[in-house]
């Protein structure tokens, strides 16, 4: 995206930008301190990796040090176990940003993340049968 389109650029003749038209007030990766990849462990969260709150999270003092986006993600995880994709949609943040923020939460011990089942070990017949029955019952 062009930096000029988010304000600070030259005035456009014949109109001003308002609200959403002006683009996001905060550039997405500003929330991650400019990082586009998760921290040192460099995990790449799958879209359907499930994020759960850690049973033994750091204390309130440490939580107080988290940024607002970290905290809203944590609140969403507390409400229910969610996939990375759902967290991004609910927090209204791009997936790339959510991955970086989740990396922070994982490293500081606030959440745990499930690894999706690798294709080679994909569902035994019993699970697929369960899926089919579940779909029929929808």
């Amino acid at each position, binding site marked *: 995206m062009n930096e000029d389109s988010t304000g600070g650029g030259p005035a456009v003749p014949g109109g001003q930008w308002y609200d959403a038209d002006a683009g996001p007030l905060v550039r997405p990766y500003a929330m991650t301190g400019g990082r586009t990849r998760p921290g040192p462990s460099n995990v790449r969260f799958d879209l359907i990796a499930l994020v759960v709150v*850690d049973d033994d999270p750091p204390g309130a003092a440490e939580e107080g040090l988290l940024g607002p986006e970290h905290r809203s993600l944590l609140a969403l995880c507390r409400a229910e*176990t969610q996939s990375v994709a759902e967290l991004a949609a609910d927090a209204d943040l791009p997936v790339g940003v959510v991955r970086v923020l989740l990396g922070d939460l994982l490293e500081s011990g606030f959440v745990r993340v499930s690894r999706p089942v690798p294709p080679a070990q*994909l569902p035994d017949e019993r*699970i697929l049968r369960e899926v089919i029955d579940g779909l029929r019952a929808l």
Partner: protein
Amino acid sequence: MAYERSESTGTGAGDGVDTTALALKILVAGGFGVGKTTLVGSVSEIRPLRTEERLSRAGELVDDTGGVDQKTTTTVAMDFGRITIRSGLSLYLFGTPGQDRFWFLWDELSQGALGAVVLADTRRLEDCFPAVDYFEHRKIPFVVAVNCFTGARTYGAHEVSRALDLDRGTPVVLCDARDRDSGKEVLIRLVEYAGRMHTARLLDSVG
């Protein structure tokens, strides 16, 4: 649809990774306007998902970035939906972005996918060729679902299968993407087929 809380929270493996809850991924692909969003929406609670992706080389050729040197990422919107089978077992559907320049997203989406639905419109059958090729090459189980638009001539599943030159056994299902039961049937056919493919591969690997 009610979202259930996963029962997996108490059984951590200790290394920050938890493997008890199971999430399966199904892709919904096909040409522009063929009904991908409609299908995902008819069987699940659909939500829009934004990704902020680095522009691929292919994307740079298509997107005119002249004079905008800073542009290295682009926002891609996808649809996704979740179907909760039971606590700890969910099915996630992803509508793949139709434009060719987003192929790089497909690679990520298809990793670990259980299978794919290729939606087809018999009036523009060629629109689904890229998706058929993609899944055939990567040996990802897929079914072709012919979205029967009103006013379109109806072809039999066999005719569509021949026109697409599908591998033997690849299911072709006639459907109405707007209809929940019809959409469910498409997914059921896919899961059954994925199961058969999986078993066949296991037999191959031991035989």
